[in-house]
């Protein structure tokens, strides 16, 4: 059973959809704060997983003065959006895998559509719209006012099964499996 928990996980498995297997299904849900705790940089930035479900992830980056890129306009540095969308994209890829594999970002292109509002929390939302044997393709947006008014959009590709070492998320899942 792969559609327990989050509301949108249930919606995503509508009538007639073939049953899907997701390696991360037991982590699907909202406010999965613990998914960032083992990643030093995400912890340092205070990033949170707002929601994770089949092929999708939404991540929040709380506003902090130290992330400002333009001292006059008080907006977060563009490159920080890279961190937000790279991470949301990577999670969306993880959330699309039937079996746990390691992943690595291959490339990211970010379009800065407008300046983000000053001193606001930023949200990154990613969707893995295509998964092949070796490569996953992701679309993502970043917003602060609401999902319909993004200030950045992003296309990314990720290698799947990129190397043999364990990813932090894989370790988290194995630790949970071990303790459960």
């Amino acid at each position, binding site marked *: 059973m792969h559609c327990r928990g989050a509301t949108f996980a249930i919606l995503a498995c509508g009538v007639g959809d073939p049953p899907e297997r997701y390696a991360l299904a037991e982590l699907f849900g909202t406010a999965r704060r613990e998914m960032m705790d083992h990643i030093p*940089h995400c912890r340092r930035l205070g990033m949170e997983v707002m929601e994770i479900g089949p092929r999708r992830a939404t991540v929040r980056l709380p506003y902090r003065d*130290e992330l400002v890129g333009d*001292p006059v306009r008080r907006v977060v540095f*563009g*490159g920080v959006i890279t961190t937000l969308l790279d991470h949301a994209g990577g999670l969306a890829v993880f959330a699309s895998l039937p079996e746990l594999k390691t992943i*690595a970002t291959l490339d*990211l292109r970010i379009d800065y559509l407008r300046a983000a509002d000053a001193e606001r929390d930023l949200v990154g939302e990613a969707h893995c719209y295509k998964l092949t044997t070796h490569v996953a393709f992701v679309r993502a947006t970043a917003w602060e006012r609401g999902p319909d008014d993004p200030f950045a959009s992003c296309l990314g590709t990720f290698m799947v099964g990129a190397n043999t070492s364990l990813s*932090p998320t894989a370790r988290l899942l194995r630790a949970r499996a071990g303790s459960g």
Partner: protein
Amino acid sequence: MRGRQALAVIPYARFLDVRIEDDRQGIVCVLPFRDDLVGNVALPALHGGVVGAFLELTALVQAIELVDSERVPKPITFTVDYLRSAGPRDTRGRAEVVKHGRRIANVRVLAWQEDPARPVAAGIGNFLL
């Protein structure tokens, strides 16, 4: 505004502690390694977003050198290619302005760790001057 001044006034550049080294070919930016920049503790490796942000910052510093303005150029698009995982050591980056127009600068940037011939990431971006 010059690159060094920019790094001093951009809070995120101070957060990353990015510095400038000069060599005969121009500006080299340095991102000192720090434990809280790690994205994968198993490898370990810098967070891909930090590498991308460092590339963008290096490109921005090079773009700032072009313009005689107090304003920080705004990125319009930025693309990062991840070539190798970036290990737990200092990262260096060098940018090159490909095209400098009246309003737009197109800037290319490469980052490496121990060997410039083995880059960890490459970036290219358009900035509104």
